[in-house]
């Protein structure tokens, strides 16, 4: 019966996931398992009879023996981080746990020990540095997916702000010219979730939208030009203007529909999607056609402080194929400001866990500012005060666009 128990115990120790050894009080090794052999780089035969203490540095031996002596009296287990060397292989840092001496009637007392290999601090630091380097590269590359410079739009001011919560982000904004500057594309978007996954999809969404919008604008303007040739005499007619409007809306709609279907069809298994506000501005008259695909409604603040929310006109992009996205049209008047943002702004938490909130944002956005720079800078400083020393939970992205009064000389654009 006892033999059977002993065999069972030995078998358990052979199978166990960490390195196990049994030694006598002098440190002579009596039994080890396969994991121990693997750890020290020797076979079982070569290990048996060696002294466990001889694998340690003089200092480790002293401190370990002292602890073992102290714990023997109390029957306590001794635990130490040690460096095992001089067996086979190189030095290895281990977490070593040794039982007190266990008396056996008629036999020499024994000690049982287990070793758990630990990564070297040096190795860990090296590993962390490598990861950090990779993330830095990712962050730099991701930055190239945000506009380096905002396009210069005569008669308009535009300011953008972006701050990632982590090294890489799922938020993005974009401002680009279409149709040789006759239209301006504006995008504010938030890819679901956070981190590297969101960042990869951010790059994909941004590229698809830009490419599809541009492609369709080029095609649609070619259509319009050929239409002009065919109906020169009617060029100012209502019908023709309708035609131009509908061509533009088709382009906008196609950009979102194609992106939606591409993501839902090719990347459906990942269940990634993005809330996107996309607008196409005619800078000559302030007409803005837009699709709000499930995004936080941008705020259009009129000169007199009244405001309007640009509510969703369709679901988030990429959830399921063939979703319906409607187009709305709004006019941005002189001195009106369009402010778009991601939920990282209103969900920003202060140290007591309270959100920044929509009301506060709305009040700030409706304030009087001399420029879009001032508006964004004021919002950023209020957000920083709110967040204080709490770590930023989500990406924070926003832009403000203002139409200057006719005859005003100053135009500007900047991104922080």
């Amino acid at each position, binding site marked *: 019966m006892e033999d059977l128990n002993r065999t069972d115990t030995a078998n358990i120790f052979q199978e166990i996931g960490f390195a196990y050894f049994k030694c006598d009080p002098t440190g002579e090794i009596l039994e080890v398992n396969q994991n121990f052999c693997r750890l020290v780089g020797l076979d079982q035969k070569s290990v048996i009879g060696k002294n466990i203490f001889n694998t340690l540095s003089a200092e480790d031996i002293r401190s370990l023996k002292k602890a073992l002596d102290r714990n023997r009296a109390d029957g306590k287990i001794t635990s130490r981080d040690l460096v095992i060397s001089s067996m086979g292989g190189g030095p290895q840092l281990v977490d070593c746990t040794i039982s007190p001496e266990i008396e056996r009637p008629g036999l020499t007392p024994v000690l049982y020990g287990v070793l758990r290999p630990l990564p070297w601090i040096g190795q860990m630091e090296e590993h962390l540095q490598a990861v950090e380097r990779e993330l830095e590269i990712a962050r730099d590359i991701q930055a190239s997916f945000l506009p380096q410079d905002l396009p210069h739009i005569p008669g308009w001011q535009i300011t953008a702000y972006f701050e990632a919560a982590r090294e890489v982000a799922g938020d993005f904004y974009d401002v680009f010219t279409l149709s040789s500057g006759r239209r301006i594309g504006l995008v504010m978007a938030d890819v679901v979730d956070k981190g590297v996954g969101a960042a990869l999809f951010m790059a994909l969404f941004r590229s698809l939208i830009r490419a599809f919008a541009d492609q369709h604008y080029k095609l649609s303007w070619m259509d319009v030009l050929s239409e002009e040739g065919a109906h020169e005499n009617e060029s100012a007619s209502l019908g023709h203007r309708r035609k131009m409007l509908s061509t533009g809306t088709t382009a906008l709609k196609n950009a979102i529909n194609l992106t939606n279907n591409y993501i839902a069809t090719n990347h459906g298994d990942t269940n990634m999607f993005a809330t996107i506000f996309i607008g196409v501005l005619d800078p000559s008259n302030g007409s803005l056609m837009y699709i709000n695909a499930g995004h936080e*409604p941008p705020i259009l603040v009129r000169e007199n402080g009244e405001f309007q929310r640009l509510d*969703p006109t369709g679901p988030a992009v990429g959830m399921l194929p063939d979703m319906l996205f409607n187009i709305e049209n709004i006019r941005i008047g002189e001195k009106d400001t369009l402010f778009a943002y991601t939920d990282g702004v209103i969900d920003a938490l202060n140290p007591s866990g309270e959100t920044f909130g929509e009301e506060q944002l709305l009040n700030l956005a409706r304030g009087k500012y001399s420029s879009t720079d001032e508006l964004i800078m004021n919002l950023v400083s209020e957000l920083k005060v709110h967040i204080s020393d709490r770590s930023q939970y989500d990406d924070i992205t926003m832009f403000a666009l203002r139409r200057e009064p006719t005859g005003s000389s100053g135009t500007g654009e900047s991104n922080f």
Partner: protein
Amino acid sequence: MDINFLEKHPADIVQVSGSVDALTASVLTDFLSLKISQDHTNLVLDLNQVEFMSSAGLRSVLAALKECRNKGGDLRIAGAQPGVEKVLKMSGFTNILKIFPDSENALASFSN
């Protein structure tokens, strides 16, 4: 976040409480995926006790919705609080799935 599973007829109820955010959403995704793989393909997701749902939570819901439908079932939402309901509406989830004021109504809808 806590999850409670109630086997009912003609659908099962998944009661979620707490915050479904970037940190907890994967637990919900795995839980729902496991239940669906065990042929619980008609689910009522009871969000009555959910205080906050981030986009990561929406992603869990989308994943489960697709899995249920792929297996011929459906996922319906019940009892969303105003904050969560707003997020569901804004992102267009109300266009792709059915939402009910409470789990009794959601459950009954599976009988129709």
